[in-house]
């Protein structure tokens, strides 16, 4: 069955912004699908609201729409582009849900678009839990006992029958959003209430608990001829009860006999056939009772998923790419295995290593949130490690996480062991280790965790060996001992700590002993066939398969696991660096450990090293490859932290000198540079003690911005309006960076913030974009919306910004990308921060201008000049790149996942992702961006105001405009008085602490369509928080800044005035 010739144009819908539960893995799958389909001669139309993705690069599709993922906008794209087919299975839950909606609302039928990948009936059977259970029963498979709840009463009645704990999952939500485990009546009421609300169909599935059972996933593929294969088996280290996205997982499954595994395989294939997934990849999850082997099917996803991305990276079998080919008619046996070249894709990969995935959480960003791990996913990223044994992979994974914690448990509390083992939480792995160190047995730990004893024994054996080694001195360690330590995955840093020396000394000694890292290949077949793809991982085996070439080559250091402030944006930069190297005729070598990303696709770079981004691992690769240069400026903070040590070790870093990158981070030295350049910055000081901090703050005058020296996504940054806040900060801050001083800046209130991305060689500076922030200064730049081109900044100040940017670039000898943050207050421009590296905004600027900044930056790093690269920049080598449409970038927040957390914005970054809106005017672009960010602005109804005195005059003007647009106004007493005084019709409501019914009641009742609630100052009263919280929970847009409110008014005006319209990037940028 060859490719289908009756379809020519295929629409692919992406997964939108990065949120918890839906991250880079869908950029990876979408990118693979686009590439595979275009390689086969199909035209691809792509729609995704996320500008940071690689898939939305105009190169990857024939028409690329960065537009809101709603039925209305999708219909407009379909109307305009007239695709023949819609591939529904590579865009995560978002893409699948939108596809279903398009089908159900008749849009696909109207325009004659065929749904390919999974049919609507199959999607429903797989996604609707009751239909799914019926289907499983029909083929003789068991599922946990369950009932569909439409009310809390239904739940209470079911609880009488099956008892607690009970698993609750709202239907059709992503990443298990709103789900949980009820251990008692109170839990049940809370979770069901919330779940009914979050579920688009207002249903919650209640299920018998299989807590503590072993959990597995199989990745399955099937073609139209009914050939079906299992790509990978995955066993969860954490048993049932923890969402797979929050579980440590291991591939292949480790503790199943063949009989059990084949039973599961048969069940997975039967499930796929019964659900009717004709083509593509799916995953099926199982639970197994460890006492008698009883197996139940937990769920299946009729699409590629986070696990399929992991399975693809774990085996070298590119599931999404193959799924796309199957969707257009190919059979599995008609597709070649890229890695072996000789054998077909119709086989089951076998691996001769162990893969461990570990999630990364960031509860510290959400004070007040519950860090218990349940069936709702809470992690923001993950790391994958490949080792020849489980222990080696686990230890590599732990250091790949870059949590700053070592795998030992020094800071742990013996009193907490039972609690930390029994209730799943982010520290559980550390506590398992700690428990063994404290003398607990495997049986003890198993009783408390239900983690399979095989895993526990592996960890315990590792600890036993570490204790054996710890008694030795470095000089006495034998070759066999050293090799075993390295084979167990122990890092040089860790061995150094054990032997009371440093990592580089250990490294030198082990090299003397002849214990050096080698590299093995991921080849899908356990070496049965020759591998033609250099996809490598390190080990301490006996032979190296790296086979480096003698070409000119450059190594790119990636950004590691996703975290808030460092995610997809940097993967975009790294991938483009790789593409650019290839275009410049240089071999590209990628190093990264994030399984979700495009950068860890073996197809992206000439060579891929799937390794933790530590000094040790990077040096190992360097020793083997001897690249001509290493790029550190594209992967965010992770490679920057390695830049200086690498330079000292003699590694050639290309682009801006690491010392200059460091200089920009050093407040004192950089302050001097600014003085010399005559560029103003807010007054600042540094402090290493509480007393010093208070003195500095007094000198500067409140409010002040307090933060640690090295910051990522504004971690641990606060605006202090009083001494008390500074005091509290200094008490807590020591936990974060004991060796580095705290920075204190005068905070410029009500300033306009500006981000600038620029390309620099030593002669010229080309500004990619001057981005005007919509929220005032004080909100982390990653959390504020911004617009290109700037809308309200006068030319005089823009000219100043251009001049300062050029001066800074020259002063820091920047080669490549630089990002500068400015604040404009009362007509004066201040520099807040300079980062001589790629920034989070690089992809957004690239999409808005049509010029791929990282590609040009690579050219500069290779020694080319801007003047030589004008064919890539639209002819410019200085000045500012033009923007043809207004492009607004808006952040996306995970607050709905963290109950009890105040969603007010501040200097600590908390958004997980971003979207872009494109329009002919600011209002249109901002409205689209807000819609894409999940904050749909209303077109009618009531707007609630509570405005502090400072902003009342502005608010009156705004309220007038809303009234003119036909909205009704409601306000708290003071605000209402001001509105009435201006002659506006307004209804007065109580504040939360005043009585009832109050503002929160009205929000919950659904009477408010928009909340505008401004706060300034240090105060964060309970009622303010209650209003913001309830707005998040009840999905009412809540705006907390006056500038945000003004922007919203423009957006709402545009929505009522302008037609609904979409533009492809190719149209905007006139792609030739």
């Amino acid at each position: 069955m060859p490719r289908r010739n009756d379809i020519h144009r295929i629409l692919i819908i992406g997964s939108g912004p990065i949120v918890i539960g839906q991250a880079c893995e869908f950029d990876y799958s979408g990118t693979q699908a686009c590439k595979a389909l275009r390689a086969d001669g199909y035209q691809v139309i792509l729609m995704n609201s996320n500008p940071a993705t690689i898939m939305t690069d105009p190169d990857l599709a024939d028409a690329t729409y960065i537009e809101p993922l709603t039925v209305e906008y999708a219909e407009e794209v379909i109307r305009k582009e007239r695709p023949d087919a819609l591939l529904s299975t590579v865009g995560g839950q978002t893409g699948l849900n939108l596809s279903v909606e398009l089908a159900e609302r008749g849009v696909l039928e109207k325009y004659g678009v065929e749904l390919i990948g999974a049919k609507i009936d199959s999607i429903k059977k797989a996604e609707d839990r009751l239909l799914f259970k019926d289907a499983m029963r029909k083929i003789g498979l068991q599922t946990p006992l369950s009932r569909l709840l439409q009310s809390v009463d239904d739940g209470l009645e079911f609880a009488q029958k099956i008892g607690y704990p009970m698993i609750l999952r709202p239907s059709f939500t992503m990443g298990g959003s709103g789900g949980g485990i009820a251990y008692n009546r109170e839990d049940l009421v809370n979770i069901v209430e919330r779940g009914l609300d979050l579920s688009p169909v207002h249903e919650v599935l209640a299920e018998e608990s299989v807590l503590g059972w072993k959990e597995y996933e199989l990745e399955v593929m099937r073609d139209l001829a009914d050939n079906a294969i299992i790509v990978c088996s995955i066993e969860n280290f954490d048993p049932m009860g923890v969402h797979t996205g929050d579980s440590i997982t291991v591939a292949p499954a480790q503790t199943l006999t063949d009989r059990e595994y084949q039973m599961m395989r048969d069940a997975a294939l039967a499930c796929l056939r019964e659900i009717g997934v004709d083509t593509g990849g799916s995953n099926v999850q199982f639970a197994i009772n460890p006492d008698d082997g009883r197996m139940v099917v937990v769920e299946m996803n009729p699409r590629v998923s986070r696990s399929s991305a992991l399975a693809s990276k774990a085996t070298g079998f590119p599931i999404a790419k193959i799924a796309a080919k199957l969707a257009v008619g190919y059979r599995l046996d008609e597709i070649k295995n890229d890695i072996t070249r000789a054998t077909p894709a119709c086989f089951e990969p076998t691996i001769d290593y162990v893969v461990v995935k570990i999630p990364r959480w960031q509860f510290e960003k959400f004070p007040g949130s519950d860090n218990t791990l349940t069936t709702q996913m809470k992690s923001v990223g993950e790391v994958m490690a490949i080792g020849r044994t489980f222990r080696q992979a686990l230890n590599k994974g732990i250091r790949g996480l870059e949590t700053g914690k070592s795998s030992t448990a020094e800071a742990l509390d013996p009193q907490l062991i039972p609690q930390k083992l029994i209730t799943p939480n982010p520290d559980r792995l550390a506590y398992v280790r700690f428990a063994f160190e404290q003398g607990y047995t495997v049986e003890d730990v198993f009783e408390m965790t239900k983690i399979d004893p095989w895993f526990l024994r592996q960890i315990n054996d590792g600890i036993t060996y570490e204790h054996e080694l710890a008694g030795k001195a470095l000089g006495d360690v034998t070759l066999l001992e050293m090799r075993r330590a390295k084979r167990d995955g122990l890092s040089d840093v860790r061995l150094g700590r054990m032997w009371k020396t440093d990592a580089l000394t250990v490294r030198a000694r082990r090299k003397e002993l002849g214990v050096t890292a080698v590299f093995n290949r991921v080849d899908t077949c356990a070496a049965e066939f020759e591998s033609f793809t250099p996809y490598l991982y390190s080990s301490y085996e006996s032979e190296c398969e790296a086979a480096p070439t003698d070409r000119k080559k450059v190594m790119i250091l990636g950004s590691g696991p996703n975290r808030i402030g460092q995610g997809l944006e940097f993967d975009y930069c790294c991938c483009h660096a790789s593409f650019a190297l290839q275009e410049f005729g240089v071999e590209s070598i990628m190093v990264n450990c994030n399984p979700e990303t495009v950068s860890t696709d073996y197809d992206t770079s000439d060579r891929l090293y799937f390794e933790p981004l530590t000094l040790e691992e990077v040096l190992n690769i360097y020793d083997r490859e001897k690249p001509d240069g290493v790029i550190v400026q594209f992967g965010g903070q992770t490679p920057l932290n390695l830049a200086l040590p690498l330079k000292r070790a003699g590694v050639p870093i290309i682009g801006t000198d690491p010392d200059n990158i460091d200089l920009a981070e050093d407040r004192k030295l950089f302050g001097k540079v600014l003085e010399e350049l005559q560029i103003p910055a807010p007054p600042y000081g540094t402090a290493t003690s509480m007393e010093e901090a208070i003195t500095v703050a007094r000198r500067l005058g409140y409010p002040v911005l307090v933060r640690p020296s090295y910051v990522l996504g504004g971690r641990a940054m606060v605006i202090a309006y009083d001494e008390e806040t500074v005091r509290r900060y200094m008490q807590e801050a020591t936990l974060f960076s004991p060796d580095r001083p705290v920075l204190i800046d005068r905070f410029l209130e009500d300033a306009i913030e500006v981000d600038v991305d620029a390309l620099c060689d030593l002669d010229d500076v080309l500004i990619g974009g001057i981005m005007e922030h919509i929220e005032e200064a004080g909100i982390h730049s990653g959390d504020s919306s911004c617009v290109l081109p700037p809308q309200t900044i006068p030319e005089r100040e823009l000219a100043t910004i251009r001049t300062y940017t050029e001066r800074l670039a020259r002063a820091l000898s920047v080669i490549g990308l630089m990002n500068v943050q400015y604040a404009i207050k009362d007509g004066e421009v201040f520099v807040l921060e300079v980062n001589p590296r790629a920034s989070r905004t690089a992809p957004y600027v690239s999409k808005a201008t049509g010029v791929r900044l990282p590609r040009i930056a690579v050219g500069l790093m290779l020694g080319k000049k801007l003047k030589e690269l004008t064919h890539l920049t639209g002819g410019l080598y200085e000045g500012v790149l033009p923007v043809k449409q207004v492009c607004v970038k808006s952040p996306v927040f995970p607050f709905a996942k963290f109950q009890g957390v105040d969603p007010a914005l501040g200097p600590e970054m908390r958004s997980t992702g971003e979207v872009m809106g494109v329009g002919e005017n600011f209002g249109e672009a901002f409205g689209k961006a807000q819609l894409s960010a999940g904050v749909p602005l209303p077109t009618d109804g009531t707007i609630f105001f509570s405005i502090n005195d400072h902003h009342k005059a502005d608010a009156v003007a705004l309220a007038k405009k809303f009234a003119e647009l036909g909205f009704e106004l409601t306000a708290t007493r003071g605000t209402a008085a001001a509105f009435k005084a201006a002659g506006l019709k307004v209804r007065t409501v109580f504040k939360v602490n005043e009585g009832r019914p109050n503002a929160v009641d009205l929000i919950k009742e659904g009477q408010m369509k928009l909340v505008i609630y401004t706060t300034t100052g240090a105060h964060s009263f309970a009622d303010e928080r209650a209003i913001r919280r309830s707005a998040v929970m009840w999905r009412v847009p809540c705006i907390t800044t006056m500038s945000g409110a003004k922007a919203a008014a423009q957006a709402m005006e545009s929505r009522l005035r302008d037609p609904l319209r979409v533009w492809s990037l190719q149209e905007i940028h006139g792609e030739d």
Partner: protein
Amino acid sequence: MPNTAILALEDGTVYQGRAYGARIVRTGEVVFNTSLTGYQEVFTDPSYTGQIVVLTNPQIGNYGTNAGDDEATTPYIEGLVVREWAESPSNWRSDASAEQFLSRNNVPVISEMDTRALVRKLRMGGVMQGALSTAGHTPEELIAMARNAPSMAGLDLATRVSTKDRYEWTAPVEPCCPTDIVHVAEPGTYHVVAYDFGIKRNILRCLASIGARVTVVPAGTTSAEVLALNPDGVFLSNGPGDPEPLEFQAAQVRGLVGKTPVFGICLGHQIIGLALGGKTFKLKFGHRGINHPVLNYRTNKVEITVQNHGFCVDPDSLNANEIELTHINLNDQTLEGLRHRSHPVFCVQYHPEAAPGPHDSQYLFDDFAAMMKEFKK
């Protein structure tokens, strides 16, 4: 007891690892198997007679062993080579650790080996003879033993491992846990005579599951003796070694063709190939694993199959007018199945009984049942 194990190859390569299992020295052809599950079934598969097995899955022993998963009464491998060996098991079905199981059955294990490097060597250089010692032999002694070990080519191992006495088998496949689904037909519907050249128990279970009462006969049984048992069909089993020396068995098959339905697996397939005038040849490093794609020409569908063979039937040596090629390996295009165009005879090179491995090909047992039913009429 020494902790060190040494594996030496006939080409002089010596590997050192950690000793487990029995403390003993054994020689054999060193082969690798790429299965991710089912090590116990591999240990006990008589087709591994004369072979030291390298498992590419690096973590072996994790789930221990259990009596239900035995493919024979004892292990048949000569020795085992693994990357990491789990001494204590974790699985509710386990009744002994893999360590206890191999120790008491005199099989040595070398662990902490770079199995990948060894596999790459075998892939590039072809299979070799080796000697594995956990009993303190020197590398020189072991190299000499490896060089003196008899080559697999020309060796009749099937007769050696075959049952000495005829016996009956009626036990079908049992569910392995409360949710395992197995299909068992009415017992005693057919009488199958099965030649034992090293038969795996799961073949017997699968035959019983299609409703067959099985009479297992020694490799030296004549076709006349078989026909005298009044079978509804004859089965030719898997087994170790080179098919070429099995001229007697090929002759018996010629005596059965057309007189009763015949079904063969693995060595049984090769014997049928020889009986029908074909030739066999030795593969460079064999097919041993549970992930081999095989295309069934009759259905145009791909099965993921279980394979364990070092020899192959050469399709060009067969008379195309008489023989239909039914299955082909998609990895290397070798012959995987054939049937006689005018007589009820069919066979496959791979293992539809799985154990270990996918169940994709179990339809072949149903085909055999259908063939017997048809022939009865």
